[in-house]
């Protein structure tokens, strides 16, 4: 092609490398320093050790907190996908009185600071004399996370060709058939993306978990509690690295799964659609 576009490619590649170095560099630094033989995360590197990983994995509090967070996110994320999809469908496919107000309500949790939501939830449960536990944390996580799913799924829904839905309805499909046969299969990538983000939001949430949690701690609450003493920071870094690696692996596996299902069904969905699909 023309020399112009070659220059463009070089520029693109340069930009890409610089950006990725800036973005990924810190992560790699942290991963490297999770093996650093010093309890202070700072230059210079003082020698290799597995110590932080060993200490992290040997600590029963870490295990409990990680288990609580995983269980919580694993329950919250699918529920959020269900609630978020249902409300996205309701909001985008029907005109009814008060639709604007309901949409506003759906958007509000996305823009109120989590600290504020956390404090308000705490007072709410206190007024109702509800014992704080993982259940109350989960309930609040659902309330702040499913609107994100709604946003992701709805923006996908409004781009759909409606002809298929209409054809299905014309052919006498029930709502259930319409959902399971027509809508949900088309939404699959958006739903997968929602699942990932909902899981991450619940897993990483500190403020709401702290204020609405009882005596079972989640992982971020544990992190903030131990960060006060600095010798814990590398342990946190080690776990953080481990969790990131696991999450990448999970997303990658999910991608393989989706691609496999897609091949079986003959659809062309891939990871790019999976991550991006929801936000189109």
């Amino acid at each position, binding site marked *: 092609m023309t020399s112009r576009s070659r220059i463009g490619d070089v520029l693109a590649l340069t930009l890409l490398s610089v950006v990725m170095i800036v973005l990924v560099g810190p992560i790699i630094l942290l991963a490297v320093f999770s093996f650093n033989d010093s309890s202070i995360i700072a230059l210079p590197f003082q020698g290799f050790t597995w110590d932080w990983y060993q200490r992290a994995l040997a600590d029963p509090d870490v295990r409990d907190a990680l288990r609580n967070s995983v269980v919580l996110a694993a329950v919250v994320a699918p529920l959020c996908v269900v609630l978020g999809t249902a409300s996205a469908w309701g909001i985008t496919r029907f005109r009814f009185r008060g639709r604007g107000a309901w949409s506003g309500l759906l958007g509000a949790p996305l823009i109120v600071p989590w600290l504020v939501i956390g404090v308000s939830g705490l007072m709410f449960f206190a007024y109702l004399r509800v014992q704080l536990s993982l259940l109350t944390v989960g309930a609040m996580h659902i309330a702040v996370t499913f609107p994100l799913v709604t946003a992701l799924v709805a923006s996908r829904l409004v*781009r759909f060709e409606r002809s298929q839905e209409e054809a299905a309805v014309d052919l006498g499909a029930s709502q259930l058939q319409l959902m399971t046969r027509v809508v949900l299969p088309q939404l699959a990538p958006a739903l997968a993306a929602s699942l990932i983000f909902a899981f991450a939001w619940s897993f990483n949430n500190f403020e709401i978990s702290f204020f609405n949690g009882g005596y079972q701690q989640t992982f971020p609450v544990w992190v903030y509690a131990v960060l006060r003493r600095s010798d814990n920071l590398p342990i946190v870094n080690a776990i953080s690295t481990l969790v990131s690696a696991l999450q990448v692996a999970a997303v990658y596996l999910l991608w393989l799964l989706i691609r496999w299902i897609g091949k079986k069904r003959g659809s062309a969905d891939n990871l790019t659609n999976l991550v991006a699909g929801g936000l189109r």
Partner: protein
Amino acid sequence: MSIAADPFTSEAEIVTGPPEPTGRRPRVRGRWLPATYLTVPMLTLVVLFLVPMLILLLISLGMGVGRAHSLWSVDAYTTLLTDPLYRHVAITTVVIATSAMVVQLLVGVPLAYIMAFKAGRFEVPLLLGLVVLDELNPVVRVYAWRMLLGRNGIINGALEALGIIDQPIDALLFNQYAVIVVLSTGWITYTVIPLYAAMKAIDRNLFQAAADLGAGWWTIMRRVLLPLAAPGIFVAVLLVYIPLFTDFAAPTLVGGTSGYMLGQAVNDLILEQGDLASGAALSFVLLVCSGLVAALAFRLARINRLET
């Protein structure tokens, strides 16, 4: 809650694009249907979000907590809005958050463009990289930036080794620029992914067609890419710009003595000063402003779209 702008509908409508041609089948197929889908989610929101927020609203208006007596007033609001301290903090916050948003868009738009159209087999690794970025513990992440930007950090070390400087540059860390860098890199996942998604939906043939018609590179970008990516920009602004106002880990840890933002102010009011009323009031002021920002972004995005 009507004060919350309507970011969600706006978003839905904007992505809908041009008005649908009339004569389509009416959408309402049964009066009960919306209720089937919406009852449970809405009940969840009303009980777990709206009612708690109403409690907080009443507290910001002076309702007593626990054994304290109620003193109804709007003092918390008038004090906040007239207090020079909060005006100062608000200005700092707007400057930092806006700069961070602009930086992210300046980096994010080309990055998303490259990912969507140029990256080829690197597309998936790049996306995965972006997802991982979002998974790091925000406190730990800040320490990585300290290693890079610090007095004896990697950047200063490299510059000294290259003989460009002979004294470490202190100004890399502990100021507003550092906050902008750390915030930008911390939130870029949520900026790039909507942009990328919007661009992925663009038909590549459009670029070729525009080029065939003699449009230059810059014209194509401005008249084809940007308008079509506008919905993505809107979603990015919604998902990123507003939360930037309430972020507090980065400003606390790399802002030094000049990066104090509204998110920290809310934290300090509620946690350090124990002044729930003022903290709640500040949150509601922020909520109203967020609504305005969302509405503005919606307008801008739609205007762009109409231009095409």
